[in-house]
Every structure is written in C-alpha cells, then in structure tokens.
C-alpha cells in the first residue's frame, strides 16, 4: 500500500464534497444524489444508511465512477487521498479500481462470474494491478482466502462459484477486495443477501480485517443495526440527501432528524439501544420517487413534527449543539 504516491498525512482518505449525480431523461433531469458531502479518514469506518432509492448505492458507485448510463456526476468533487476523481478518465480510473479502492457488492451470487473459477477471478485482479507471475499471484490469493477463513483454499481455488454457499462466496468477494491491500473498501449492502447467522460472521470478518489492515471502510446499508455494530460514524440519507451525519454512538442514541428517529423506532429491540415502545413503529407513507420530489424538506409529507417552513425551504445540515452531529432539519437547534 505504500507503492502509490504517498498521500499527505493530513489529508483525509476520502473527501466527498457537494456531490450531485443526475440522470437525464426525456422531460427533466432526475437528480439522484444532491449536495452530498462527507469525509472518511484513514482506518475509519463510515456507515451510509437509508431506504432503497435514497441514493446511497449511487453515492458508493460514484466514488468508483461506475454509475450506469445515462447517469453522471453533475457537480461536486471526490477527493481520494487528496486527488479529485471526478475529472479523471476511464483510463486514469482503472488503476485505482480494485487496487486502491475495492468494492464489495450486495449479492455474492451475482457478483462472481459463474463461468470462471474463483482462482481465476482472484488472480486476474492481482495481475491487473501488480507485476507478478501467475504462481506468485496464486500463492497470494490462497493466502488471502486463508485469511478470510476459507478451509483448504488450494483446492477451492479451482472451483466455480456455484459450488460455494452464499456466505462462503461473500468471504471470497471480501478476499478479492483485500487482495491488493486497498486503502478504501466500499461495501454495498454486504450482508443483505445472507442469512442472519452468516451476516454476523461476515460483519465480524469485515471489522476484523479493516482494523487489522487499517483500511477505510464505507459501509452502505439500509440496516441501522449493522451500522451500529461496525462503524465509527454514520450518515443517514433520504431522497438523495444526507439528513444526518455524526458519530454512530450519538446518532443511534440521540437521533436528531425525525427520519432517523423513525428508522430507529422501526428497529426491533434486540440491541442495547433503547428506542421503541414495545411494538415496532413504522414511518407512514413511502419515500418520494425522484420524479416528484416534494419542495422543501423531502421528508415533510411523512414527518410527524413538520412545520410550515418544511414544505418551503430545504433545511441545511446544521450542527446539533447537544450531540455534535449534523442534521438537516428546521427543528434542530
């Protein structure tokens, strides 16, 4: 990991500023992500939480500049190790992807190519970024498989993805992400497609490895429980915007934004956290589609505590005096 240009120690690992991602369509341009800013430091773990469609995955993909057509980054900057990725070309992005920044996808069934052995899929990643012999790459791959607790990795290198269980496959995906010792891993819903028991294992593994290697982790999930287990800080997204961001502890225990509160109330009470009143609460209504985002605060039609201003002006992120978190709500002081 030191082979790349040494970043200035002071600069954060990743700094996203005013990111805006839009999809031009026939009538208007849909903005899927707007004015998203956050910072991720070396070795830090940041959670990105929200319902599906909130724009969290698109945010994740836009860091690798892998937004599917016709989407594009229409504004903002993404500073990775001090370098802005937005203006970079495909050719310039390629050495970063999979090397400095690795990504873990949601569904390990779909992520691994069914017709290639996992050995092939691991080795090709190494060979794409390192000058290694096939032999060396293979050894390194086996080593990494062992690190993610795959039993008898030598044998399993030559097997195809469908010969593995879901949890095993996700371990392999994690192994591939770790192969090049990246400084940032973006994990997009890494446990959603897995059984609950395996979820915990995978999360532990992620946590263990991230700590061990000192990598930054951007964990994208809809599950606040997962976030509270793993991350240092959390950002909550709603309809393309960050509505609350701060240390995980604070956000989970003292949510400021009504949406965050709602999310937490919807959680079963199995965690140390206290919200909930016996039965599961739910947020009424659904998240607006990008076609008809309401004016003002996008959450106001569902908000139990909305005031007049909510439907008129978009609230900015403001620091909350008590917790030190930032929240975008007119009611936060």
């Amino acid at each position, binding site marked *: 990991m030191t082979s790349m240009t040494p970043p200035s120690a002071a600069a954060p690992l990743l700094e996203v500023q005013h990111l805006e991602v839009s999809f031009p369509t026939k009538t208007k341009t849909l903005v899927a992500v707007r004015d998203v800013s956050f910072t991720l430091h070396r070795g830090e773990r940041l959670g990105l939480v929200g319902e599906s469609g909130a724009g969290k995955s698109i945010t994740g993909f836009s860091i690798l500049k892998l937004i599917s057509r016709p989407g594009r980054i229409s504004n903002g900057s993404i500073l990775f190790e001090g370098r802005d990725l937005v203006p970079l070309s495909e050719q310039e992005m390629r050495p*970063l992807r999979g090397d400095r920044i*690795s990504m873990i996808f949601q569904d390990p069934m779909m992520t691994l*190519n069914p017709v290639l052995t996992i050995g092939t899929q691991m080795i090709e990643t190494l060979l794409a970024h390192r000058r290694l012999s096939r032999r060396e790459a293979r050894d390194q791959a086996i080593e990494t498989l062992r690190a993610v607790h795959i039993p008898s990795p030598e044998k399993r290198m030559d097997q195809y993805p469908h010969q593995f269980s879901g949890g095993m496959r996700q371990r392999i995906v994690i192994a591939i992400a770790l192969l090049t010792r990246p400084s940032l891993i973006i994990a997009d819903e890494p446990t959603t497609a897995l059984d609950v028991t395996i979820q915990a294992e995978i999360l532990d593994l992620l946590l263990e490895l991230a700590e061990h290697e000192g990598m930054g982790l951007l964990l994208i999930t809809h599950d606040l429980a997962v976030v509270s287990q793993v991350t240092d800080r959390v950002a909550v997204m709603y309809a393309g915007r960050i509505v609350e961001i701060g240390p995980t502890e604070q956000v989970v225990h003292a949510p400021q934004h009504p949406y965050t509160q709602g999310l937490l109330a919807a959680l079963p009470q199995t965690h140390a956290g206290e919200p909930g009143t016996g039965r599961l609460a739910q947020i009424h209504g659904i998240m607006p589609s990008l076609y008809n985002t309401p004016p003002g605060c996008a959450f106001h039609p569902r908000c139990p505590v909305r005031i007049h201003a909510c439907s008129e002006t978009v609230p900015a992120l403001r620091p909350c005096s008590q917790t030190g978190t930032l929240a975008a709500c007119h009611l936060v002081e």
Partner: protein
Amino acid sequence: MIAFLIRRLLQACIVMGVISLIGFSLRHTVGDPVREMYGMSVSAEVRAEARERLGLNDPIIVQYFRFLKNAVQGDLGNSLFYQKPALEVILSKAPATLELVFTSALLITLLSVPCGIYSAIHPRRLLSRIILGVSTVGVSVPVFFTALMCISLFSITLGWLPSFGRGELTPLFGGAWETGFLTWSGIKHLIMPSFALTSIMLPLFIRLVRAEMMEVLQMDYVKYARAKGLSERRIYWVHAFRNTLLPVITVGGVQLGILIAFTILTETVFNWKGLGGMFKEAVDRGDTSLLVAYMVVVGALFVVVNTVVDVIYGMVNPMVRVVGRK
C-alpha cells in the same frame, strides 16, 4: 463421461432405427424409383418385374426388417442411381460438404463474434446499425439470388473466381478424402459458395451474440469486473463473452448439422458435388434407398453434433452439467 457417451451411442442407434422406420413408411411419397430407372417407352410389365425384383412390392414391414438386418451389418442398401452401396456414396460426397461447411462456420465465427460484441457494446452507434442492417439483407434475399449475383459479378464480369465445382483436389488418407484446401484452385473455388452460405447464417449469429452480450453486460459480475479494475478487453472477452456462448453454441450446433445435411440450394447453384446436391438429386430421381440411408446417417450426425454441443456446454458453463447427470 464414458457411460454418458455409451448412453448417447445407444440413443443414436434408436434414433437411426426410428428414422429408418419413418423413412421407410413414407418413402413412396418421394416418388417411384423404377420410373426414373427406365425409359418412358418401357412396358408396364417390365417395370412391375423390376419392382418385384427390387422387393418393392413386399409389405413395408418385410422390407423394413430386411433393411434392418443388413443395416446391422453396416449395409444400408444400394443407391439405385449410383449403383453402389449408399453408404459409400454418402462418404464420397461428405468431404466436399464438410469442407464447405467448415469454411462457412469459420467465417461465421470470425465475423459474427466481433460484429456481435461491437454492436452490443455500442448499441447506438451508426456502425452497429449498419452491421445489423446489412447483415439482415443476407437473410432477406434468397440464397440462390446472392449466389448468382456473386457468380455474375466475380465469375462472368470480372473473371476472378470460378463459378462451379471444387477445382483441383488433393487426395488424402489414401484417396478417401479429396481436399480442396491444399491448392490455390481449390481455395478459389471455395470462396463464393462459402460466402453465400455465410450470408444466410450470419445475421442470426450476430444477433444472438449481440443480444446475449447485451444482457450479460448488465450483469453485476461485469460491473464487478470493472470495479476490480480489469481491462475492457478482459471484461468483454473473458467475463462477458463466455457467458454469451451457451445459446450461440446451441443454435450453432443445430445450424451446423443443418448445413452439413441440407445445403441444397448453395450446392446446386455452385454445382458443388456434396451431400446437399446428392440429397436433392436423390429426391429428384426418387432414389429412395439412398434417401433412407442418408436420413439414417444424418440422424446419427445430429446425435453426434448434439452430444458434442452438450459436452461443450459443460465446459463453457459449469452450471450446466449435462454429462454428469444420471
């Protein structure tokens, strides 16, 4: 694997049996071979005698068992027209067709894969549109039209290429196979027929490769391959392309079989003395014993081709395990 092949072999035998039975019971509809064997002025009695002598008057079931008995010993009967064992006739005509089909298959592969992939990657580019459009013209024009236009241009007007036959041949394997690949004349004779054959098949394959490729390109694993920082070339050719192969190979297998068996029009127009021409001649002359023998051989051919295709499935897509299944 060996058990699988043996099973297929048995199935091939059954297929051949069924084909010969159907062929036998329907062959009278193709025509009366005795008519073609005698001049018009020959009396009806002579023809009746000939029919009797050839055993054509026996009940079909008797004829069929006679045929089966000989077939078990490798004798599929005599071609009435060629005056020799039908199997010998078929084998002597096979090299011509196999070489033609092989060349076309090669051309189709070399053209359809890059064209299909290109138009899948850039579906809206002008060049993709042109590829799809122009290739469609190939199927919408009868093949004899294409063939004769080629002849008219390259043989008659320009005088570059010969219009018929196979040219100078080189005997291989002690004369069992005469190849046109080894002489310049043989290759020149091959150009137009294989092009004509290619033109009818190409659009299907370009479209198949393209459609499958477009689907595969949307798959997560392709996006993931990008996220791994792989080169475009590797993404398209290793990750995406291999996943597109299944339907392409299936259709390819069937088409290859059909080409080998029934390239009637192309062979006719280029006077290419292969199996297709032989088949048409057998139909024209009512050479029913050659026809039945030929169908039996073709049946075996299809079983073989499809077995090979099934084996290839297992190789390109490990999810499909045809071979290992009981």
